């Protein structure tokens, strides 16, 4: 923080310069498995983010691959878009695949 008292009293106004960038971490727990969001870490560079992700999220598990992505690179839907984007259309039954029978022996659906 700086000596600027007004800035100090409104911490949400801007990111303090002592704060590192945020990176989202995705871990894969086996060949062919999806990379799943594990959490986030603070880091200054991509290499640094990779190391922090490894130390925080990959050291104990059976992780075989890591992705780190700058949080700012993620485009997120806005809560106000929830209706237009996700309204499930439950009144349109033909959109749902429940009329199909899954053949016996098919796994992983």
């Amino acid at each position, binding site marked *: 923080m700086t000596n600027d008292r007004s800035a100090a009293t409104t911490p949400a106004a801007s990111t303090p310069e002592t704060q590192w960038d945020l990176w989202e971490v995705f871990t894969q727990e086996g060949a062919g498995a999806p990379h799943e969001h594990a959490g986030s*870490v603070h880091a200054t560079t991509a290499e640094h983010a990779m190391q922090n992700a490894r*130390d925080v999220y990959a050291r104990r598990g059976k992780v075989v691959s890591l992705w780190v992505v700058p949080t700012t690179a993620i485009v997120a839907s806005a809560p106000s878009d929830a209706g237009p984007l996700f309204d499930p259309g439950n009144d349109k039954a033909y959109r749902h695949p429940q009329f199909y029978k899954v053949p016996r022996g098919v796994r992983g659906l």
Partner: protein
Amino acid sequence: MTDGNGELSTGNRGSADHWIAGARPSTATSGVAENVLFEYLLRLADDRLVLGHRLSEWCGHGPILEEDIALANIALDLVGQASMLLKLAGEVEGKGRNEDTLAYFRDAVAFRNVQLVELPNGDFAATIVRQFLFDAWDVLVLERLSSAPNESLAGIAAKALKEAKYHLRHSAEWVRMLGDGTAESHARAQRALDEMWPYAGELFLMDDTDRAAIATGNGVDVEALRARWQQTVDQVFGEATLTIPRNAFAPRGGRIGRHTEHLGRMLADMQSLARAHPGASW
């Protein structure tokens, strides 16, 4: 602070050379330890035990949560390696001592680590520079040991090598970030390098016990590794815009139990619980 004076006072400054020529390991009648493999395993183990404990002192005090976890992870790796090596040392010695006995019931004069690893943590830059100097050496040593004829030692080294490669990647990246960072971080990293650099020389000293271990294949000719180590540190310190000091001060003696005043205090803390409650388990 180019002569290493300051916080890291060692108590044996100015006596760098006069005692080493005639010094003898306490367990030996000549320059060679009675049980070469036991003595050599202690040297390997104690570097890791002491450095691991030093790093563990950061737990809860790291500069940021992620780094706090990273330092604790590395500390655990090193203590784990020490545990395996001390267990093996106890078996090789054959006098009924196990890894706990060797870790908690030896005094400072019986520790065989280099002085570099027992130095106080200082600031974060000092911890990182100390770690980098050790890691760059450690990877080379473990590479050699992973093909040692003693299969237990080779197995421990092969496992430790994977960990050490990550330790080096981590500490080297931090040296670059601090050295090539802000004016403040650069100044701290340079001061840390000035303080730590003289102690790195001990990593490459060898005595008759080392040479006897090398003769059996269960030891590493560290003199032969120095050029590769120098290449690594020159490159990383260059990228970090840090200057390696020119310095004749070369502390030594850790391998035969000559330590700085700092080790005794560290051991008093590390060993207090085990000594207050002998045989306790948790």
